[in-house]
């Protein structure tokens, strides 16, 4: 490899920028964050991902200083930030609603934080000009927020939160209000800006695709706990639980009974069906109930019985979802279980020969499935 990959989380020497140490947050009887520990490193683009109400926004608000933790400590560069009020933290936030000041122009919005620092006039002007250039808003400097479009407002909000060159930038669902096309463009723009400025970004989102695209690491949350923290590809390929496998992307979950066999497991999942073979790095704690998670794109579909396949099952095509670039086949096995198999449509429509009610074979390798205990 020509370039060393950016992975400070694998480096035992690296000092984290942010450290959550056994942080708990309660609102009355409701536990929003439950004894959570997490380390985030400098220059990371870290995504907090989870369904609404999982506590991801609470984490962010604790970092910004709007909510104090009920227990535990949060360290920023090794310092406990609990006693520091939000206006004294080297942390800035981009709000979900953007929270642009409607009575100020774009220029004044961006300059707002700099003016609070009592910087000299020239320094403020230079910095605002730099931010306008970075977010390509030079033409709109004199406009008020309601005189520009949604995408432009989003960039003003970003420029304003970056203007003070914070150690840490928090982004609360930053692209939620944009339409799909604009959102995709903006994701790359965000990554670009993050790289240029070298700021640590923590983004909150419920959109798994967005988290996967932008983040260096993703934390999947549920009910105030971290379920898995890892790089996007590892989260996708090696989910540590049924919850993560199911939350990220599309997946087939097959429940069965596992028995150790060689360097893998043999899983019995239904009467009259062959045993499924799966190799796995993380061993089960013994034999017993388990779940196989298999991504649809890792399952091949064919009308003839495949040769030398580690796993092959028979079924009937129940439904076909044609997505243009991909087709997803919903195949019903004899026991009624539906398995999804995905193929790329590399050929034109006339060449494809599978259709509804066709009897087909599904096959996958012994490394395709992840064995989960849960």
């Amino acid at each position, binding site marked *: 490899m020509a370039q060393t990959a950016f992975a400070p989380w694998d480096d035992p020497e690296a000092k984290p920028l942010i450290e959550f140490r056994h942080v708990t947050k309660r609102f009355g009887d409701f536990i929003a964050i439950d004894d959570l520990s997490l380390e985030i490193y400098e220059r990371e683009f870290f995504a907090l991902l989870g369904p609404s109400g999982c506590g991801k926004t609470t984490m962010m608000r604790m970092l910004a200083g709007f909510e104090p933790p009920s227990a535990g400590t949060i360290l920023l560069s090794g310092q406990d930030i609990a006693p520091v009020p939000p*206006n004294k933290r080297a942390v800035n936030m981009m709000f979900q609603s953007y929270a642009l000041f409607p009575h100020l122009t774009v220029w004044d919005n961006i300059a707002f*934080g700099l003016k*609070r620092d009592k910087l000299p006039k020239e320094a403020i002007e230079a910095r605002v000009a730099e931010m306008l250039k970075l977010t390509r808003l030079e033409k709109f400097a004199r406009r008020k927020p309601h005189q520009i479009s949604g995408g432009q407002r989003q960039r003003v909000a970003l420029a304003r939160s970056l203007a003070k060159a914070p150690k840490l930038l928090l982004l609360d669902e930053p692209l939620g209000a944009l339409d799909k096309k604009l959102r995709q463009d903006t994701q790359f723009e965000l990554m670009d800006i993050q790289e240029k400025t070298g700021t640590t970004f923590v983004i909150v989102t419920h959109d798994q695709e967005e988290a996967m695209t932008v983040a260096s690491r993703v934390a999947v949350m549920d009910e105030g706990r971290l379920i898995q923290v890892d790089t996007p590809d590892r989260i996708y390929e090696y989910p540590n639980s049924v919850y993560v496998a199911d939350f990220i992307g599309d997946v087939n979950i097959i429940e069965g009974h596992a028995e150790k066999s060689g360097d893998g497991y043999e899983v019995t999942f239904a009467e009259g069906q062959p045993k499924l073979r799966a190799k796995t790095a993380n061993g089960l704690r013994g034999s017993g109930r388990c779940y196989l998670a298999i991504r649809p794109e890792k399952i091949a579909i064919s009308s003839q019985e495949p040769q030398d396949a580690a796993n092959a099952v028979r079924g009937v095509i129940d439904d076909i979802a044609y997505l243009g670039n991909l087709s997803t086949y919903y195949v019903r096995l004899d026991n009624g279980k539906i398995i999804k198999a995905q193929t790329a449509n590399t050929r034109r429509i006339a060449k494809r020969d599978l259709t509804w009610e066709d009897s087909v074979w599904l096959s996958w390798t012994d490394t395709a499935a992840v064995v989960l205990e849960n």
Partner: protein
Amino acid sequence: MRRFSWFNATSLTLGFAFLYMPMVILIIYSFNESKLVTVWAGFSTKWYGELLQNEAFLSAAWVTAKVAVASSTIATVLGTMAAYVLVRAGRFRGRTLFSGMIYAPLVMPEVITGLSLLLLFIGIGLDRGVMTIILAHTTFSMCYVSVVVSSRLVSFDRSLEEAALDLGCSPFEAFRLVTLPIIAPAVISGWLLAFTLSLDDLVIASFTSGPSATTLPIKIFSAVRLGVSPEINALSTIMIGIVTVGVITASLISKRASLRLQAEEQAAART
């Protein structure tokens, strides 16, 4: 096509006649030559001239203006603060009681408010004059201001304040630089409401005024008891004029502001 049917035209005429007939008669008679209010003897503006010579009326007008400006300003400051606390503090013990107590003076009979204030001023030995009227007017108009301002604050996006804090403002700076400019229209209309309430209050002022200070409504009321004079008509006409100009200006300003906002938003949608 006729815009109004016979029925609509009649109800419109009746409604407006009911509302404005008394005022129109008052205005017409203020230009009456005769000293007798009910007998028309030709057009004249002499009562306006005489009004300007009347020391008692002029000093009462001056007291009224001072009281209205001072009390509405103090009421706006206090009322805005109360509204801010009630909307922002969220839930705390006794919140309902507290907010109920702020709005209670809205429904309290003025006679009772006036009497209790009188007893208080006597109790603490405060001489009745301009000062006591200002205090009394502040007391009862504060809750009107807080109602107007809190209804605006409820729809105020809290994250704007958080953004200000996040960008380095102290809580007071956040209020001064962000919250206040945005809620300013509500604060101004609260002030105007307090001002007009103070301007036409008779009951509370008559309890709390002293021999040294008489407001215009008290003066008019006591003058009318001795018989309506054309001077009173002239004075009332002036007051109607001031109020009309004020109302029209305020509505024009707000209409123009909303039109401009609309135009700007349309311009933004096009870019």
